[in-house]
């Protein structure tokens, strides 16, 4: 039973989160670094270039890296303070074993003994219940090499279909919509295409706080004449000065896009020639949109008709445009439809695949793009291949040197894996780079499932809230302790470089996976001696797939400061070897060739045409109702990242925004008798939370917002609903019915737990 071994407060005392601070050489004004290591930030999908100052195997500070083209030295506060995650008092430097007799709940275990304990447990489960009784959870902050190895490890070594990853909470709606519309899942244009456009539409993206470096691209575009349209239930910092703000009601995005497209059709602000030549399915969309009159759209979305009309006019009359979206429209049980609705606006105006005209999806995690391409997603194999496609299976089985019949079929999404744990089908779990106890919706259920596991192994560098349930914790590597590639928001592959060695008995994650494989007596295919060797195999495995990395080398990535995939080793037209394919910064350019269309057109379907999809509006599951009259929406703050395993341990970042608050409009606060700073209680059908109120005019009066980075009784995900999109399986984090009242007293944790705990 993977229950918490002792009183959780004792575990927190021993393993944190505690705060790192600038002390010693990290505070000195005279200490010089031994060297500067050019690498990238460990946090979001922008993957800003940064130089780490290293002295005596310790990262002691940073220096901006102004030559890296995406951010040219710019960093958000997380990037500035990222170096404080190293040499941390909470860093795991030995393996740990669950130990109820220890006051700390865990005892150190020699590394080899820990691996032996893990493999014995997996063996036992395999013998008793078969290979499908063990599941694997991965993460999109891992390097591409690690995600590739993890997928191979699950299928080849563990022989389980049950592997999925935390990108399930992030990029899957965008990815599914992109595959349905374009046949390929990648942002279509480099961000530099934004500057010089007539209009930029930002749908559900709090750019300023979640992808801050994109702000400068937006502002620079505006300096050169772009109108900026922002669609969000909150006036986020970047929305304050946008040209048109659309205060959409949470969960109504597909309706908004359909209503705007209807105006475009009525006014003939569409590109008929492009639609005829390069798309299919427009007629069905026209038929669907007819019901979305201006009045109805305005009523459903909560956006005034004048603003819908203005948005349609600017978008419709523009010559060039850029549209991008993020979790705001994707974190919905209708997330794929929302994303498809936005793509329909792009296709109807034919503004894609050209300089200064594009479309993009903002990835949340460091390797949000690369982490979904090479096989840790339950239905995919390397190169964005499909695990159900016989040809794809045969090719990958060949690369891996196994019989195709031994390759498991598709698994299930992350949340469904927890349902399978609950049902007793999955009994053992290996998790890396994922803190589902904080990040999954309705996390009381997730906790119950973790408790039920017969054997749970966590690979982590800190004891995350989820790892507190583990039977064995294996000490993995921090970002700066290993090398490898990741693919950032634009589809640009960049190189993460090692700055310091793993401390104590900690080691690189790929070594740990291989050690488990060896312990299980299945070393075949797990004898790599470096990330470069893994990458060389990945190049072969991705070759011929949509995400083709075959022409990418570490040297090319460093020389070009990034390579946009697809990047071919052989010309896809002729099969002739290419000496130096530079990569593909912009997809779908007129006349471009891709291996799916084979010259029939620029899009990745056999006929080369993009697809219009009817993007049907469906109201959210557990929508606002009489009983729960408000919309609860969740998201991030700029100083924290995801479940906070790293950022809740960095002192200066915690001090910037210490604890979550419930954001509400003064009109609502007045009605509820709540003043700014009062304790307020928010309740949904899943649970309740007591936090201080933050009363601001920058949110819809029918909506409350809670950031989700905190654990336990401060966790917004106690309230969120586990409804999922039927196609992408993304959870509906961005809306559920909620009610709020003034709290009678402070919560129990107040005065006991530190803000970050």
């Amino acid at each position, binding site marked *: 039973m993977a229950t918490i071994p002792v009183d959780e407060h004792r575990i927190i005392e021993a393993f944190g989160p505690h705060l790192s601070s600038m002390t010693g050489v990290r505070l000195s004004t005279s200490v010089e670094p031994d060297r500067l290591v050019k690498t990238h930030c460990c946090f979001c999908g922008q993957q800003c270039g940064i130089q780490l100052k290293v002295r005596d195997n310790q990262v002691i500070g940073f220096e*901006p890296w102004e030559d890296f083209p995406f951010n040219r030295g710019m960093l958000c506060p997380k990037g500035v303070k990222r170096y404080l995650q190293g040499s941390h008092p909470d860093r795991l430097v030995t393996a740990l074993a669950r130990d109820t007799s220890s006051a700390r709940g865990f005892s150190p275990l020699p590394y080899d003994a820990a691996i032996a304990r893990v493999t014995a447990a997996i063996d036992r489960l395999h013998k008793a219940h078969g290979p499908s009784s063990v599941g694997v959870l991965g993460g999109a902050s891992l390097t591409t090499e690690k995600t590739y190895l993890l997928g191979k490890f699950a299928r080849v070594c563990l022989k389980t279909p049950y592997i999925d990853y935390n990108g399930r909470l992030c990029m899957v709606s965008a990815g599914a919509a992109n595959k349905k519309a374009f046949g390929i899942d990648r942002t279509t244009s480099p961000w530099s295409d934004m500057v010089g456009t007539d209009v930029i539409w930002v749908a559900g993206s709090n750019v300023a706080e979640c992808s801050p470096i994109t702000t400068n691209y937006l502002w620079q575009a505006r300096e050169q004449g772009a109108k900026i349209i922002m669609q969000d239930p909150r006036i986020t910092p970047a929305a304050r000065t946008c040209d048109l703000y659309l205060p959409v009601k949470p969960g109504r995005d597909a309706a908004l896009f359909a209503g705007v497209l209807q105006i475009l059709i009525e006014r003939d602000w569409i590109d008929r020639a492009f639609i005829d030549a390069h798309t299919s399915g427009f007629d069905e969309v026209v038929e669907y949109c007819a019901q979305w009159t201006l009045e109805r759209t305005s009523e459903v979305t909560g956006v005034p008709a004048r603003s819908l009309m203005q948005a349609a006019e600017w978008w419709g009359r523009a010559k060039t445009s850029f549209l991008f979206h993020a979790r705001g429209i994707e974190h919905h049980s209708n997330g794929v439809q929302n994303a498809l609705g936005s793509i329909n606006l792009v296709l109807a105006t034919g503004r894609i695949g050209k300089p200064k005209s594009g479309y993009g999806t903002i990835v949340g995690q460091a390797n949000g793009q690369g982490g979904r391409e090479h096989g840790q997603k339950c239905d995919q194999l390397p190169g964005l291949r499909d695990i159900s496609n016989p040809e794809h299976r045969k090719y990958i089985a060949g690369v891996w040197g196994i019989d195709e019949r031994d390759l498991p079929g598709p698994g299930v999404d992350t949340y469904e894996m927890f349902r399978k744990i609950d049902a007793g089908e999955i009994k053992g779990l290996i998790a890396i780079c994922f803190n589902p106890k904080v990040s999954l919706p309705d996390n009381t259920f997730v906790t119950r499932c973790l408790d039920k596991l017969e054997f749970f192994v966590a690979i982590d560098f800190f004891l995350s809230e989820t790892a507190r349930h583990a039977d064995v914790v294996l000490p993995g590597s921090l970002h700066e302790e290993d090398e490898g590639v990741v693919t950032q928001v634009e589809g640009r592959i960049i190189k993460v470089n090692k700055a310091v060695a793993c401390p104590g008995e900690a080691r690189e994650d790929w070594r740990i996976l291989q050690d488990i494989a060896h312990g299980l007596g299945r070393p075949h295919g797990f004898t790599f001696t470096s990330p470069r060797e893994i990458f060389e195999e990945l190049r072969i495995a991705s070759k011929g797939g949509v995400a083709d990395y075959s022409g990418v080398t570490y040297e090319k990535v460093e020389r070009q400061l990034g390579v946009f995939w697809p990047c071919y080793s052989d010309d896809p037209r002729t099969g002739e070897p290419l000496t130096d394919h530079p990569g593909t910064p912009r997809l779908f350019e007129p006349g471009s060739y891709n291996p799916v269309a084979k010259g029939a057109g620029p899009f990745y379907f056999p006929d080369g045409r993009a697809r219009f999809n009817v993007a049907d509006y469906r109201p959210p599951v557990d929508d606002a109702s009489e009983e729960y009259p408000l919309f609860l929406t969740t998201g991030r703050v700029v100083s924290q990242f995801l479940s906070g395993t790293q950022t809740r341990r960095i002192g200066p970042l915690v001090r910037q925004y210490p604890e979550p608050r419930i954001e509400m409009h003064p009109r609502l606060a007045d009605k509820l008798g709540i003043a700014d700073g009062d304790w307020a209680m928010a309740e949904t059908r899943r649970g309740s939370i007591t936090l201080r109120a933050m009363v601001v005019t920058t949110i819809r009066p029918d909506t409350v917002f809670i950031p989700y980075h905190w654990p336990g009784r401060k966790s917004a995900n106690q309230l969120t609903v586990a409804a999922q999109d039927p196609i992408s399986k993304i959870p509906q984090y961005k809306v559920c019915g909620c009610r709020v009242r003034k709290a009678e007293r402070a919560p129990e944790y107040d005065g006991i737990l530190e803000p970050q705990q």
Partner: protein
Amino acid sequence: MKPDYLHFFIDPSRCIGCQACVQACTECDTHRGESMIHLEFVDRSQSTQTVPVVCMHCEEPTCAEVCPADAIKRTGDGVVQSARRPRCIACGNCVVACPFGVPELYEDRKIMMKCDMCYDRTSVGKKPMCATVCPSQALFFGTHEQIAQLRPRSTPVNRFQFGNQTITTLVMMMVPRELAAPAPYVDVTSAMDEQPRSRAKVLKVIAPGPEPSPDQPADERDPFAGIEV
């Protein structure tokens, strides 16, 4: 010496309040652990508007003029430095007198410290830490030609009026050339109505603008009328 063709520009309309500047300032090699820059929330209950405040490096620094110990010096290239030891007597006159609210007294060290435009960096040809990292480039360090090319919608000003005192500064403030098309969004409810309501407030940068005539509807008042460029 700071190269004389490089200048510091602030554009609060770009600021997103992320505090990268504040966090980065604490990483500067001359004052690690302390930020010499602060971020002002104009009124968070009403708006997400924030303003990063760095030293404006006045031609005739009020802080230096009121210093009884002559501890505040201006370099030949116009950078006003932190108070010098052992002269500074930590009296706090400069803190009270500075019209921009920049100097800060560090009681534990008995000294005033303030932004010195990253003199350790700018004097060797680097950009200040805050302006290098700023994700919105609300803080910009470069030439007049660069700013003119990059920011056609606004213009730099460096003369400010405080009562009877006119102050000329080394640091430039970017001011819109003309009325920005829409007023800034401050309250969601005004964006939810069919009839938009303007919530913009008149800012007075140099000279007071003409009083809005009483018969003119509030919505049509120019929110930037008070700005003289």
